[in-house]
């Protein structure tokens, strides 16, 4: 492949239920550590039916921001900025002119500033206050994480939010990849952020009747549904030539991006939509099915998703499906909605880089409807030439990224 328009990853950052840096997140994923536990963030959690979530623990915003800055930063934007700073520091890049003007900030988020929304509704409806905090609106808007990263990191190019529920971050990263590939921008900070563990949001999820009361067991027999998570993960993407010219450390290469819409049911997963998104990513990356060794699955732990995703994989990969290692890191960090695709992309890139597949924990045994190799309960050493990261969202919106070992 010619070096022209190749897109590489030079920085990673993450704030997760398994640690506040990409390195601690990855170390804990490899160990199969469970980040799911009792809900503490929601106001009056004792009133909730749902008792568990994957919360980012012991996150002290004052370690990262001055107090006056916090009046404009919802928890979701705090996560976003902290992860972006880490990724930029790792990339060792400075956004001077004119690079700043040519750097995109494209950030996925599903629901934006839920903590701010929840707090202001409590004030109005419960405490009968007549006013809310003055910066309520700019704190809760879905583009707040993208805007705050651009402000805090000095990025002046294309900047916006991408919202496609559970696929938001994957759509965001894919879009940034294509913008770099086409030459529309020279650098991108991209990923996803979510902070949705609030009383009101949890009530909404409870009402859907899809939450697991115990823990998230993707692809396992006796799985009982999904567990909500939160966090952020960010990537710095650059053209290979630019990264080489400045002597940057190259962590991995993004080669393909596929998207599709089910145009069917808002919540029921669709084999056709999943299949088209995976096939799109393979075609975009000029990859044959045999080139793929690992898939970081959408793997929510619901009965319907995991079975449908397995069928779609059979359809795309045929006989090669049985040779794939497939795992769902949601078993450890829950479902972080709009951030999920970015958390999973970091896991996928590091799995390829270090030749280690993170496990699907909580796995009790095979379900006849899920008959692939899910890397149950323990990480596995595996040389990976190329891998996919899948996101299949409510609303029937699907996005898949393909990455390759950099050489």
């Amino acid at each position: 492949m010619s070096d022209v328009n190749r897109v590489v990853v030079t920085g990673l950052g993450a704030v997760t239920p398994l640690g506040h840096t990409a390195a601690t997140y990855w170390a804990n994923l490899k160990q199969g550590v469970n980040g799911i536990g009792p809900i503490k963030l929601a106001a009056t959690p004792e009133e909730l039916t749902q008792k568990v979530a994957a919360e980012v623990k012991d996150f002290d915003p004052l370690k990262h921001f001055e107090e006056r800055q916090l009046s404009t930063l919802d928890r979701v934007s705090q996560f976003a900025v902290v992860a972006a700073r880490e990724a930029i520091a790792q990339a060792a890049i400075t956004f001077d002119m004119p690079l700043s003007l040519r750097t995109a900030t494209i950030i996925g988020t599903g629901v934006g500033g839920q903590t701010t929304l929840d707090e202001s509704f409590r004030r109005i409806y419960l405490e009968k206050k007549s006013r809310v905090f003055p910066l309520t609106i700019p704190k809760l808007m879905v583009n707040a994480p993208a805007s705050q990263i651009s402000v805090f990191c000095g990025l002046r190019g294309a900047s916006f939010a991408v919202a496609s529920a559970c696929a938001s971050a994957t759509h965001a990263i894919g879009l940034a990849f294509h913008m770099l590939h086409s030459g529309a921008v020279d650098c991108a900070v991209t990923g996803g952020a979510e902070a949705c563990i609030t009383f009101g949001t949890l009530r909404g999820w409870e009402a859907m009747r899809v939450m697991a009361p115990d823990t998230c067991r993707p692809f396992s027999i006796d799985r009982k549904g999904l567990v909500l998570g939160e966090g952020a993960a960010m990537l710095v993407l650059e053209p290979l030539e630019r990264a080489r010219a400045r002597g940057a450390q190259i962590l991995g290469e993004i080669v393909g991006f596929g998207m599709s819409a089910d145009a069917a049911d808002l919540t029921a997963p669709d084999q056709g939509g999943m299949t088209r998104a995976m096939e799109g990513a393979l075609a975009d990356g000029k990859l044959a099915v045999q080139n793929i060794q690992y898939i970081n699955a959408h793997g929510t732990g619901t009965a319907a998703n995991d079975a449908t995703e397995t069928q779609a994989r059979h359809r795309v990969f045929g006989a090669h499906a049985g040779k794939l290692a497939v795992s769902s890191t949601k078993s450890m960090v829950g479902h972080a909605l709009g951030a999920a695709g970015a958390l999973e992309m970091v896991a996928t890139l590091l799995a390829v880089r270090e030749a280690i597949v993170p496990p699907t924990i909580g796995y009790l045994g095979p379900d006849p409807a899920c008959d692939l190799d899910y890397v149950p309960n323990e990480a596995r050493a595996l040389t990976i030439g190329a891998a996919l990261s899948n996101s299949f969202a409510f609303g029937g919106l699907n996005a898949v990224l393909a990455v390759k070992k950099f050489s």
Partner: protein
Amino acid sequence: MSDVASEVIAVIAKKKRVDKPNVELSDRLDDLGLESLNAVEMIFDLEEKFNIEIPYNANTNNPSTEFGTVGDVVKAIQQLVDKKS
């Protein structure tokens, strides 16, 4: 037919996803298009109407043992209503 049965049938008739003029106790929920996630609006309406909480997880509900038919739903609701009073 009991009051509970006729009220349950009225809710299901509004939420069913297939064309069928009458809902009967022997009708299967999956035949009415009310399986898994498609049943959650029906469950919500029943909880609101009877002021009860119905334990239901779309991932683990097994139509052959739990809410298989309209009659099964009526029976479960009747028990929850009785327990409340």
